[in-house]
């Protein structure tokens, strides 16, 4: 087992770290902060964050609806939430690019207003929302299922309004789960390549994301460039992992 981990994980990781060391700090810094790299961080992180927050909002709503209400096709809808986990990302990118293109089913509804979705940052955001959605729903759903309705009912019977019950009784224990889901979705969106490369026009300074920049650098055999941008992504991923662990520890106070 440790042999497999060494072969598969430690060696490749070590190869990347040693490669980044051979670049030298000055050169590393120059590549990491080159204008094109900076613009890809901006596109990647802000778009991922917005996509994850929108998923946070709708993901909680979906989890709530699935846990608390009965309606036709509920089991089908519940099962379908995992579609982004099961559907290969290339297929997701392909079909989102078609549906949200100017003459696609949904894109054509926005085209008359001059809103282009596919092949812009908006499209990248939609693809990120697609792949990150299950993270929020599947993190919030079990917590919601475990919550006892008695607490809410007590709040109601003590005269709290729906709004007060939601903000004061429901939301606090759900909050760590929501944050964890959003953080997981965010880190997935940051690294996403398959769907985003297809729906993006990959124009530098507009909708070029960091993983695609890494890929382009590799295609040009610029291993140093690819390594530097990868290191930046990995640092962010590690920070996100720490944040997620921290949120989960903090959330245990409600157990």
């Amino acid at each position, binding site marked *: 087992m440790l042999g497999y981990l060494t072969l598969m994980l430690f060696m490749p990781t070590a190869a990347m770290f040693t490669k980044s060391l051979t670049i030298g700090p000055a050169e590393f810094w120059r590549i990491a902060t080159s204008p094109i790299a900076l613009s890809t961080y901006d596109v990647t992180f802000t778009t991922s964050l917005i996509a994850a927050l929108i998923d946070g909002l709708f993901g909680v709503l979906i989890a709530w609806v699935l846990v608390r209400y009965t309606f036709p096709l509920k089991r089908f809808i519940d099962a379908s939430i*995992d579609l982004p986990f099961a559907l*290969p990302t290339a*297929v997701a990118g392909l079909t989102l690019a078609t549906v949200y293109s100017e003459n696609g089913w949904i894109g054509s509804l926005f085209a008359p207003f001059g809103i282009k979705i596919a092949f812009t940052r908006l499209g990248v955001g939609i693809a990120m929302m697609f792949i990150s959605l299950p993270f929020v729903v599947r993190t919030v759903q079990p917590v919601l299922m475990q919550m006892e309705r008695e607490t809410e009912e007590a709040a109601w019977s003590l005269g709290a309004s729906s709004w007060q019950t939601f903000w004061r009784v429901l939301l606090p224990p759900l909050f760590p789960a929501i944050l964890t889901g959003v953080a997981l979705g965010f880190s997935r969106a940051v690294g996403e390549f398959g769907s985003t490369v297809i729906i993006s026009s990959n124009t530098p300074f507009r909708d070029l994301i960091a993983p695609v920049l890494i890929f382009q650098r590799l295609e040009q055999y610029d291993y140093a460039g690819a390594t530097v941008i990868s290191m930046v992504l990995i640092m962010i991923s590690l920070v996100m992992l720490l944040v997620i662990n921290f949120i989960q520890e903090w959330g245990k106070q409600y157990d």
Partner: protein
Amino acid sequence: MTNNLVEPSWQTSELSPQSKPHRRLNWIPIVLIGIAILFLALVLYIPAANVFYQAFHNGWGPFLKNLSEPYFQDAVRVTLVLAAIAVPINTIFGLCTAWAVANKRFPGRTLLLSIVDLPFAISPVVAGLMIMLVYGRQGWFGEWLIERDIRIVFALPAMVLATAFVSMPFVAREVIPVLEEEGTDQEEAAYTLGANPWQTFWRVTVPSIRWGLLYGVLLTNARAMGEFGAVAVVSGNIAGLTQSLPLFVEEAYKNYDTEAAYSAAVLLALLAIVTLVLKEILEHKTGGHTRKTH
């Protein structure tokens, strides 16, 4: 789980007799369900339906014709080979990890758990780059491999490595919670009754974790067959040789051969649907405790 449409609004009606409980009782759920379904339709269902529409809107003819193209069939073959190697390896690895980690407390246990999860945290493109830096021309073993004329990158071996890398954590993740829930009582009973570790593993442990294990294998397979980013980096994307089905989809789309792209996409979408259906069945077998995030 209680599945009531009824909000506990009868209790408020006692406090405020003039409120109309029936109106609130019906509208809030309907509006919320409506918003949820609208969002899901925009993001999931319409795009999913579009895959099938695009593949079949000219009838079965073009679809069947695309299926018979040699590059397409090669892509299917490559994808099957990748899964056939990566899935068993990761199943064995996942079982070993789960067995080592569950029900045991040792220093570095949490660290090991995080390490096993690492492939999920790393962008697939970065995973591909790492493999290039070990086996590629400029990589650690690059010269050594070239001298001996062993092809790893831009060939199947690196694609297998990339596939195994990204699908590594699934089995361990699914099996660990099941093992932890089961506890070690039954294994200990088997030991005291004179069973050796091998017998205990096959006759006691495996049957008790079988649904969780199957679930993990299922997810591993879906990811292995569908991986794009990591494989794209290391494969060189040579049609007929190192082009897997997801790579075929992207290349066909880029070459404006939308029909071929969607014919291949339908196969992958069917794989996803089969995965979801089996997953649903397995969840019922395990009482739903496999439901969590990945």
